[in-house]
C-alpha cells in the first residue's frame, strides 16, 4: 500500500503526489472528488501537479490516478456557438449538471455525442488512396455560413480502407478506416479528433499575410492596421476601454471564425458578450454573429490553473479552424492574467523569481504563444490564418512592466490605450503617439486597390498633423493660445477635427459602431479637405478667428453618426456642399477686396 499513488501535500492549487512513472504534462485525477490536474514537475517517484479546480477539502493520503494523456481538446462539429471553461468543459452542460454554481470533479463530454451531423465525403477520395495527415475527408455544414471541413488528424498516414457515404453520423461513429505504419495498424477516424493544447498543430509552410483584418474601427483600420495572420497587443490601464475595444473587434471584424478567450476577466462583462452576440448580425454576410463565434471563459474567480490553460485551449481550437482554410481571429483578454497565473504557480513551487516575481520563462512562453498566430498553407493545401489579439493589463498602466515589454517584442501591431484619453471619454482611447503597426506597406496595397490610392498619404498627413498639434498644445499650455500664429491655431483646430471627427468612435451609437473602409476614408478625407481649404483661406488673409467660428466645424464632427455606411454618396455630396457654403462667401469677400492688406499679424 505504501507505493499506491496518493496525495502527499496540498498547497493552494498545487498538490504533491506519489505517482511513479508519471510523465510531465500528463493529466491526472486527484482525491476522492476526482479533481483534474496536470503534472508539472517530477522528482523521483514524486510528482508536482497543478489542479484545475478548487482543492479545498483534499487530504493527504487520498488516491491519485494518471490519465495517460496530456491536456487535450476535442475538435469537431459542435464547437461553434459554444461556451467552454478554461479546460474546455462545456459551461452550458455544467449548468445542467450542477446548477448555478460550478461543481467540482464533473466528468462531461465536451462535444455532443448524440447529435447527428450530415457528413458529405470528398468525392475525389477513393478507398485505396494514400491518406496523409491533415487531408480533407469531407465536410459537415455546421451553420449556414460555416462548412466544417472534416480533416484527417495530422498524425495519420496510410492507406484509406473505406470512407463512409453521405449521411447522418454522430461523433462516435466511425467514418473511415486507415491502415498505417510498418505494422499496418488499423486507425478508425470519426468526425472529431483530439489534440494536445501545448503542441502547435502542424502545417506545410508559413506564408505572408496580405489582407487587412478590418474591424470597422477607424483608429485601428486606418491608422494602425493589423493583417489577417498578424499579432497585436492591446495594453491599457483599467478603465481605458480595453474590453470594449476587444468586444468591438469580436463583433465586427471580417474574419470567418472568432474565438474569444476571457482569461481571468469579469463575469458580468462576459455575460454582456453572451447576451449581445446572439442579437447581432455579421455585417459581412448578414448571418447571426453567434454562428461564427466560440468562447472560452475562465472568469477571475474561477480556479487560477485553468486560467493558465485557457489561452492554449483557445489557440488550439483556432489552429483547427485555420487548418480548414479559415481566417480566424482569436482575442485573449487578458494575457496579463495568464502571466499572473504562471507567476502564482511558479511562486507556490518556490521557483526563483526573475522580474517582479514572474518566472524566468515568462518571455519564452509568451513569444511561443504569439508565434502560433500567422497565415499558413495548411496540410490540405489551403490557406488559413490566425490573427491573435492579446490584451495586456499593465499594473498601474505602466508599460515598462515585464508582460507589456515582452509582449511588445512578440507582436507587430501595438494598440496602446491611454488613461488620459479615456478620462476625457475619447473612445476608442487608442493613443496615436504610442501605438504602431508594422504592416502599413501590405495594408496600403489593399487600400489602394480597394478603396482609394490616396490612403497612405492621407493617413501619414493626419498622423503628422496630430503629432504637430501635440507640440503646439505643449506651447499653449505654457503661454496660451494667443501666442500661436494663425496657421498654428488652424493646425490645432485641424487636429481636433481629425480627433473628434475621425478617431473618436462610439461603440454605442448604432450608426457609428461599425464604419466601412470606404466611409473611414471618406471621413478622413472630409476633415483633411476642411483643414486644407481653411489654410487656403488664411493665405487669402481671412482671420483665423472667423474660421474657428464656422458652424461647419461642429457639423463635420457629426458626419460619422449622421451618415450610415450605405449613405456615402450623400455624405460626399453634403460634405462638399457644406464646405463650399461655409467658405465661398469668405473667399469672395477677401478676393473681392482685390488688394488685400498684407496678412495681419496675429494678435500678441
Amino acid at each position, binding site marked *: 500500500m505504501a507505493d499506491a499513488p496518493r496525495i502527499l501535500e496540498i498547497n493552494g492549487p498545487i498538490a504533491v503526489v506519489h505517482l511513479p512513472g508519471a510523465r510531465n504534462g500528463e493529466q491526472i485525477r486527484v482525491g476522492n472528488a476526482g479533481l483534474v490536474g496536470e503534472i508539472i514537475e517530477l522528482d523521483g517517484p514524486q510528482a508536482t501537479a497543478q489542479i484545475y479546480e478548487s482543492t479545498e477539502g*483534499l487530504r493527504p493520503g487520498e488516491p491519485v490516478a494518471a490519465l495517460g494523456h496530456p491536456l487535450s481538446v476535442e475538435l469537431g462539429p459542435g464547437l461553434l456557438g459554444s461556451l467552454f471553461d478554461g479546460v474546455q468543459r462545456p459551461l452550458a452542460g455544467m449548468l445542467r449538471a450542477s446548477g448555478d454554481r460550478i461543481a467540482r470533479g464533473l466528468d462531461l463530454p465536451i462535444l455532443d455525442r448524440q447529435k447527428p451531423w450530415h457528413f458529405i465525403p470528398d468525392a475525389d477520395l477513393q478507398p485505396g488512396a494514400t491518406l496523409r495527415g491533415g487531408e480533407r475527408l469531407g465536410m459537415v455544414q455546421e451553420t449556414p455560413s460555416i462548412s466544417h471541413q472534416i480533416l484527417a488528424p495530422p498524425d495519420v498516414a496510410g492507406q484509406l480502407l473505406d470512407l463512409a457515404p453521405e449521411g447522418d453520423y454522430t461523433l462516435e461513429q466511425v467514418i473511415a478506416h486507415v491502415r498505417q505504419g510498418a505494422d499496418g495498424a488499423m486507425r478508425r477516424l470519426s468526425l472529431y479528433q483530439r489534440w494536445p493544447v501545448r503542441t502547435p498543430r502542424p502545417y506545410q509552410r508559413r506564408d505572408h499575410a496580405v489582407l487587412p483584418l478590418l474591424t470597422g474601427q477607424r483608429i485601428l483600420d486606418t491608422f494602425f492596421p493589423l493583417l489577417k495572420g498578424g499579432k497585436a497587443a492591446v495594453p491599457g490601464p483599467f478603465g481605458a476601454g480595453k474590453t470594449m475595444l476587444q468586444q468591438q473587434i469580436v463583433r465586427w471584424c471580417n474574419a470567418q471564425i472568432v474565438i474569444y478567450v476571457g482569461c481571468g476577466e*469579469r463575469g458580468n462583462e462576459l455575460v454582456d458578450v453572451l447576451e449581445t452576440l446572439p442579437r447581432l448580425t455579421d455585417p459581412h454576410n448578414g448571418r447571426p454573429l453567434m454562428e461564427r463565434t466560440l468562447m472560452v471563459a475562465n472568469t477571475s474567480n474561477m480556479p487560477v490553473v485553468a486560467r493558465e490553460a485557457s489561452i492554449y485551449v483557445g489557440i488550439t481550437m483556432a489552429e483547427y479552424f485555420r487548418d480548414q482554410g479559415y481566417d480566424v481571429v482569436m482575442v485573449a483578454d487578458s494575457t496579463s492574467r495568464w502571466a499572473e497565473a504562471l507567476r502564482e504557480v511558479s511562486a507556490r513551487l518556490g521557483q526563483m523569481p526573475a522580474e517582479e516575481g514572474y518566472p524566468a520563462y515568462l518571455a519564452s512562453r509568451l513569444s511561443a504563444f504569439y508565434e502560433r498566430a500567422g497565415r499558413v498553407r495548411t496540410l490540405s493545401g489551403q490557406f488559413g490564418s490566425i490573427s491573435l489579439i492579446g490584451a495586456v493589463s499593465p499594473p498601474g498602466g505602466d508599460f515598462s512592466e515585464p508582460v507589456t515589454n515582452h509582449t511588445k517584442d512578440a507582436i507587430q501591431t501595438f494598440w496602446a490605450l491611454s488613461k488620459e484619453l479615456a478620462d476625457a471619454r475619447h473612445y476608442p482611447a487608442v493613443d496615436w503617439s504610442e501605438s504602431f503597426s508594422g504592416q502599413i506597406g501590405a495594408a496600403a496595397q489593399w487600400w489602394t486597390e480597394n478603396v482609394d490610392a490616396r490612403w497612405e498619404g492621407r493617413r501619414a498627413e493626419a498622423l503628422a498633423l496630430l503629432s504637430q498639434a501635440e507640440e503646439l498644445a505643449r506651447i499653449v499650455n505654457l503661454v496660451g493660445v494667443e501666442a500661436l500664429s494663425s496657421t498654428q491655431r488652424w493646425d490645432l483646430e485641424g487636429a481636433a477635427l481629425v480627433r473628434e471627427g475621425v478617431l473618436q468612435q462610439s461603440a454605442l451609437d448604432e450608426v457609428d459602431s461599425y464604419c466601412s473602409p470606404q466611409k473611414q476614408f471618406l471621413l478622413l478625407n472630409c476633415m483633411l479637405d476642411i483643414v486644407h481649404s481653411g489654410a487656403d483661406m488664411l493665405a487669402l488673409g481671412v482671420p483665423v478667428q472667423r474660421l474657428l467660428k464656422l458652424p461647419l466645424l461642429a457639423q463635420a464632427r457629426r458626419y460619422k453618426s449622421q451618415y450610415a455606411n450605405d449613405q456615402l454618396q450623400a455624405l460626399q455630396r453634403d460634405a462638399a456642399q457644406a464646405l463650399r457654403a461655409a467658405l465661398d462667401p469668405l473667399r469672395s469677400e477677401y478676393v473681392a477686396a482685390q488688394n488685400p492688406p498684407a496678412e495681419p499679424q496675429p494678435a500678441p
Partner: protein
Amino acid sequence: MKEKEFRTASAARGGLLFMQNTPGVALGDRVRLQDYRGQIRNGQVIRSSDDLVLIQVFEGTDDLDLEHTWVRFLDQPFEVPLSPELLGRVFNGVGLPLDGRPPLISPLRRNVQGAPVNPAARAYPREFIQTGISTIDGLNSLVRGQKLPIFSGAGLPHNRLAAQIVRQASLPGEESNFAVVFAAMGVPHTDARFFQDDFEQSGVLTNVVMLMNLASDPPIERLILPRTALTVAEYLAFDLDLHVLVVLSDMTLYAEALREVAMAKGDVPTRKGYPGYLYSDLAEIYERAGRIRDKRGSVTLVPVVSMPSDDLTHPIPDLTGYITEGQIVLSRELHSQGIYPPVAVLPSLSRLMKDGIGADYTRDDHPRVASQLFAAYARALEVRNLAAIIGADELSGADRQYLEFTRAFEERFVRQGEDENRTLADTLAIAWEVLSVLPASALTRLREEDLAKYHRPAEISAPGAEP
C-alpha cells in the same frame, strides 16, 4: 479525526500555527484551538501534508504557547449558519454574535468560500439604481448586481458617501425589497459607530447585517470576514429574493492582512510585498456580486478602497479596478474646496452604465448628456490649468466660457447636500442647466434634437464677448 485533539504544534508566528504529525487533514478544514487559559480560537487549514499542517488562526497567535495549545480538526469546511434571523444582527468575522444576543442556530449552513457562479448562469445587470447623487446617477450610474468601489484616501468622506448611497439607493418606481450587509475590516471604532448610528437614524437597521472587525481586533480575522459577509449576502439575495447592497470597508486593510499572512508563510512577494495571488484572491471576493438568471435578488457590491498616499496605481486600487466594473474616485482637491461629495469626475467610471441608462431605463438623452459633460469637463480642466499659468484675462472668449462651465459644474452639479436626494430628472435638469453655459457649437456629442429640446443658453448670461 473530529474526536482527537492534538498538542503537536511546532511553531507559531504571524498568525500561523504549524502542526506536526497530524496526518490526513483536509485543506480548508475548520479548526478549533484551545489555548493554555482554556480560551477557544478559530482557525483554518491553509496547507496540508502528512508531516506538516499550517493553520491560520483568526484570533491571531499572540499569547499562544506550543506546549499547551490543543488543536481539534473539525472535519468540516468553514461554514456559517444562515436564516432570516440574520437581519438586524451584528457578528464578528467568523460569525459569532457581537450584539450580546445568542448565536444564530440554523440547519442551513454554507461554506464561506462559496463556489464560482457558472458564467452561463449569470444574468447581465441592467437595472438602474437611483442613488440620488448626481455624480453617480448622471455620470457613473450604478446598476443592480454591479461592483462599484469607492477609491478614497485618508480623511476623505468615503464613509459619508457610502452611508448616503445606502440610505438613498432605490429603484425608481419599485417597492423596495432590500437588505444591506455591512462588513467592516480594520476600521476605527468611530467609523463603525457612524454607520451604526446612520442606519439607526434612517430606520433601516432591521434590514442590515453587520460584520465587524475593528482596528483593534486581530487582523487575520479580516481574511475570512468578507467571505462570511458575501455568503450572507448571497443567501439573502438568492434564497430570500432580496436586493442586497454590500459595503466592504476597507479592502486595503483586508489586503494588508493578506500580506501579513503571506509573509509569515514565506510566499514570494511581488509588488509592494503583496503575494502573487492577490488578484485571484480579490477576484474571489468581488466576483461574488451579480445576478443569477431565474433568481429575483441581486448582490450589489460597494467596496471602499483607501489609496495609500492617494496613489491610484497602488496594487490594491489597481487590481481592484481591473476586477470591478468601474470606480468612484474621490478627489482631495474638491474636498479641500469644500465640495461634497468630492467625486473626481474624470477618473470615475461605471462600466455597466451603458446598458442601464437611455430611453428604456432612464431617459433618452442621458448617455449623450453624460458623454458631453465628461468631454466638456475634461476640456474645462485644461483651460483652468492654463488660466492658472497665464491668468484668466488672457483666455479667449471660448475658453472663458469653459472656465465658467467648470464653476457651474462643480458648484451646481457635483456639490450637493448629504441628505439631498435628487431624482434622475433633477440631475438631468441640472446637467442641462450647466451645459447651457456653453454654446451649442461646443456640444458636439449631443444630437441636434437634444439641443433643441433642452439647451437654453439664454437662461444664463454668457460671460465675456469676443476680445
